[in-house]
């Protein structure tokens, strides 16, 4: 079973698009659901942390997988 409900691939996108599109994707999800985001923008690591801090959405994990950044975000 996947540990997320939806996935959004932001590979190749640069600031602020990964955050803006993530916000959009979360908007279509229900509270408690988990979104997996894949990004290549190195700035996204700090940005997703800051996004979670300011929006109340929970950053469950933030890491690197085969050269890409992967985030799991639980919608508040």
């Amino acid at each position, binding site marked *: 079973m996947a540990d997320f409900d939806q996935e959004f691939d932001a590979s*190749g*996108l*640069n*600031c*602020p*698009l990964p*955050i*803006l599109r993530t*916000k959009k994707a979360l908007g279509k999800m229900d509270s408690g659901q988990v979104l997996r985001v894949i990004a*290549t*923008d190195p700035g996204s690591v700090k940005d997703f942390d800051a*996004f979670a801090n*300011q*929006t109340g959405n929970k950053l469950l994990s933030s890491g690197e997988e085969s050269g890409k950044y992967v985030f799991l975000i639980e919608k508040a």
Partner: protein
Amino acid sequence: MSDTKKLAIIATKGTLDWAYPPFILASTAAALGYETQIFFTFYGLQLLRKDLDLQVSSLGNPAMPMPMPVPVLAQALPGMQGFMTSMMKKKMASKGVASVEELRELSQEAEVKFIACQMTVELFEFDTKDFIGDVEYAGAAKFFEFAGEADISLYI
């Protein structure tokens, strides 16, 4: 909701490079839950055109990274501005940087409020039919109505 944070931006520049900061910051702030307004004045009004034709110039801008050194006099030659602009756009697209149009659209979708300076419209005899919709035309006092309550105010 009085605990909503507010961001007020004044956009005064109308070049391709300077079109980015107001729209990047406004759309991001909106995504973070800020109530956001941009007041467009003077050359900033060019950012509201339906058909954007924003240019960038290396003239008077020694900090602009160039792929090769070009003497200032040569930078003033006809066609150079168009060349610089198309190079900048290509560079941005290759790095996954959004277009100004896209960021503007994302800002409006996120309910960022656009206010255009009425005085500038009169001054430059702009036709508001050339501008995008959902823009309010007003003056400085209208800006302060929002900015006076704002947590952050930026002049760009």
